[in-house]
């Protein structure tokens, strides 16, 4: 088993982070944290064979501050993955930012957002207008996988989310309808310590229409144009993205049901490349029990690999790919959650298994048979998830527009 986690040091920092600031409620500061110690075994990995690794993944420290009666909000998320998993996390089918079959570490400054909420007050009647600026998620697609049940990131992460950008978002909510639009920089980060390329701010845009159809059903449709996401100077091809989703969160069967169904499509190089995904996932929480399941069928572009087959050549210097692999994966998991610290601290041991197939679509020279020696995909993970104050947090939602009102900004189950 390979091991690259300075777990002891991480644990020290983590323990410290769990302690709430004195008087956080009175000052309107809410602290959140997350960390998952996990051991994952994947068969096969690039080059063939199997690999087992232990990692501390998703080590997050988050602070959410509210001022002016909730009209002004600030959110910061420190992500320490660049330190605890610089070589990425074993993830069959995972890709992006130069990683393959490993989920890349996020940037340290994962989110740094400031939102002005309900700017016009009563001047716009029942409608609410918010503006958010900073570094964070563009309004596109579904919630970040970090705030969803499954540990293993879906293959479609880069098809269904646009994150870690310098972004300016305007959002308006009228009744059950919520419309967000944003400008941002198209370049995605290349390493954890990298900031967005500020002079590219505004070269990309996204919009998301959300309908809060019922108290438990949320429908959304998104569109985005992302300029040269994989080539930081800006000479790469543009990505045109579509996304639609239905999200359910409700009481059911004596417990709480969460479900998400999403479809997304990304076109690049004027439609020369098309990548598609469908995903459905659900979790049912009853007492301490948390069974969950995810299905996805997602396309991955295959890039030219380095000698380390987990890594692809960056920066790009061609617009060719080596093929497209379609991953059809099932992920089953079970967590057993215990709470402490007035319910804020949650400890959840869990096991999770992924199985399915990888198949080439429409030709190419880097097929699963060449890369892995098989089309079969299997992975299993066991771990312990610790979180503080994260219950209901929707990562990537800003401006408080998901909330029924601005009077209670930290209402569980809503974004920030």
């Amino acid at each position: 088993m390979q091991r690259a986690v300075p777990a002891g040091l991480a644990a020290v920092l983590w323990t410290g982070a769990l302690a709430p600031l004195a008087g956080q409620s009175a000052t309107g500061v809410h602290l959140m944290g997350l960390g998952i110690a996990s051991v994952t075994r994947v068969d096969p990995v690039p080059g063939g064979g199997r690999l087992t690794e232990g990692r501390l993944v998703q080590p997050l420290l988050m602070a959410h501050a509210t001022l002016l009666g909730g009209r002004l909000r600030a959110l910061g998320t420190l992500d320490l993955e660049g330190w605890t998993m610089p070589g990425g996390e074993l993830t069959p089918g995972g890709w992006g930012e130069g990683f393959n079959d490993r989920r890349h570490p996020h940037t340290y400054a994962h989110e740094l957002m400031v939102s002005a909420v309900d700017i016009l007050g009563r001047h716009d009647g029942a409608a609410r207008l918010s503006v958010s600026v900073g570094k964070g998620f563009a309004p596109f697609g579904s919630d970040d996988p970090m705030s969803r049940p499954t540990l293993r990131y879906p293959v479609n992460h880069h098809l269904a989310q646009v994150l870690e950008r310098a972004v300016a978002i305007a959002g308006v909510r009228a009744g059950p309808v919520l419309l967000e639009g944003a400008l941002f920089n198209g370049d995605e980060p290349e390493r954890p310590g990298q900031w967005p390329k500020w002079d590219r701010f505004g070269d990309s845009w996204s919009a998301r229409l959300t309908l809060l159809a019922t108290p438990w059903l949320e429908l959304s449709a998104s569109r985005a144009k992302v300029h040269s996401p994989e080539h930081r100077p800006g000479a790469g091809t543009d990505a045109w993205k579509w996304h639609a989703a239905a999200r359910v969160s409700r009481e059911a069967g004596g417990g709480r049901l969460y479900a998400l169904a999403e479809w997304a499509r990304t076109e690049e190089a004027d439609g020369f490349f098309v990548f598609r995904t469908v995903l459905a996932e659900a979790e049912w929480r009853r007492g301490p029990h948390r069974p969950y399941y995810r299905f996805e069928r997602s396309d991955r572009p295959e890039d030219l690999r380095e000698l380390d087959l987990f890594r692809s050549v960056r920066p790009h210097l061609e617009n060719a790919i080596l093929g497209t692999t379609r991953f059809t994966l099932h992920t089953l998991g079970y967590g057993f959650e215990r709470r402490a610290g007035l319910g804020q601290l949650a400890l959840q041991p869990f096991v999770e298994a992924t199985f399915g197939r990888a198949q080439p679509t429409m030709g190419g020279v880097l097929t699963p048979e060449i890369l892995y020696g098989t089309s079969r995909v299997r992975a299993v993970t066991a771990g312990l998830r610790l979180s503080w104050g994260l219950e209901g947090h929707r990562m990537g939602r800003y401006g408080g527009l998901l909330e029924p009102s601005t009077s209670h900004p930290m209402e569980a189950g809503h974004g920030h």
Partner: protein
Amino acid sequence: MGIDASVRPRVRLAGRRLVLGLATIAGLACGGGDTGGPRETGTIAPLSGDAQTATVGTTLQPYRVLVTDPQGQPRADAKVSWSLKSGGGVLAAGSSQTDASGIAEITSTLGTLAGAQAVQASIQGYSGSPVGFASTGTAGPPAGLTKLNGDNQTTSRAQAVLIPPTVLVTDAYGNGVGGVTIGWAVQAGGGSVGAPTSVSGPSGAAAIAWTLGATPGTNLLAATLPGDTTVTFAALGVAAFSVDGGGNNVSDRYTSDLWVADGYAYTGTWGFRGAFGNAVKIWQLDPGGAPVLTDSIITPGISTVSDLEVSPDGQWLVFTSEGGANRGIHAYELTSPGVAVSRAALGNTNGLHTGTLAVIGGTLYAFAAQDPPGCALKIYDLSAAASGTISVASSTTIPDNYCIHDTFVRDGYAFVFAWDEGLYIYDVGNGSHGGSPANPVEISKTGSPSNLKFGGETHNGWWFHNPVSGEQKYLFIGEEGPGAVGSSSSGDIHVVDVSDFAHPVEVASFRLAGAGTHNFWVDEPNQRLYAAYYNGGVVALDISGVLAGNLSNRIVAQVRPGGSGNTYVWGVMLYGGSLYASDMISGLWQLGLP
């Protein structure tokens, strides 16, 4: 991955249906309803008519709802509001009254666009309101046939066209009609089709494989819809290179560039095919037979041999490499033809994408393309390679917009092909602008990310000295567009007038439908350009005389030596009356000229 054009309409339709579906659900969730009359309470529920499927434009069975009072008894004379939420079509009225049984109904006619229709019935304040109905309109009978893709292609005689001819079957409203059998028949030129019929898919697209006749010339193919609607595809069959030997001879790695000298061929390897592309293969040529592999140079710590060349005096084999700790430039002395002895290497932490050899002032130099970040034209002095030293003569920075891909050096000028940065021309020893390998002097640069030239993905080139006309005005530039290595490619040949080095101007271009170009070789005495064309194989163009506009009529021969699915040609080189081609999938080929 190249998108199959036949897939696009279906994808768009699916997306449209999804949006309509969401809109339907949204409409159902938003509520609404009748606002007239006294406020009563009760229940409204669907009775019949939901989930019908019919041809577009059809009047459906009525949608019916049952209205009851709080006691569950049918309520007569209640006014039910009906609205069309999505999908087009027409409702017979905006409202209807319940009868004595508490039933209200409305007649709906589907719109002309295939897909979902959503209708809503409502009574304000009633439980269950609004009630949603959803029906599906399907395409009508086939009424039209149009060419969707694959017309006017060029390929060598007796070969299949790269893009299968594809038709779109539509109904009277333009909806794609699936399940329709299309007849295919060769009308002229001989040749054959994969099958006499094919069936349209859900989007209405139907395609067929088409192999041209054995005689060069025009080929015609008719597609017929039952009822005698016919469209005709044309293709030009040109002469073919003969496949004289080789092929399917490198199965352990993907093949990259090649060079031929003194009876031997040298081929590089690329990427990962179970093994990395860390090998240079050495082949003994036989004019009458297949190349024979005699040796391989394996270089640990690299993943690709990106370019290779033998020096003009035949004494040096020099190659560049990418990926891994040992990437850089490597010089081997050819102690005799085909016998290579390692003498010197110099690492480059970025990797080198290509290397072009040229003798300037009696010294052998390599003009190399340094990969990002920190793109540069790197000129290496190889004069001391025999004693183990390669030195950097100069390094000229090029902006990181996909960097330099190739360099062509002639008469002391270096033509640098730098993707979105376009074309750079340097004096590197001609003397016209005082340049030298140690101090290249920029004469001009053409293109930038905001002002793309030559297709914007400037990759390689050849400055043509025409011995017949005496002209040196044309520079052929290869554009390397998007592609899926091994299966698809794109990019044209651009002809640039460089009579004035300071102001290069594009004057002509050539496009091969369904494929993109890569490296060139020019037979100057015979005024022929040979271009590697990836999945399009090898193409020969007549480049005599004045070149202007569209050069599609200049193609004189083509071949896909490995056949469909087994051809992806990286480079070509003329030697000893044969054309040698390195194919990424199928290895080294020896081709006879047409």
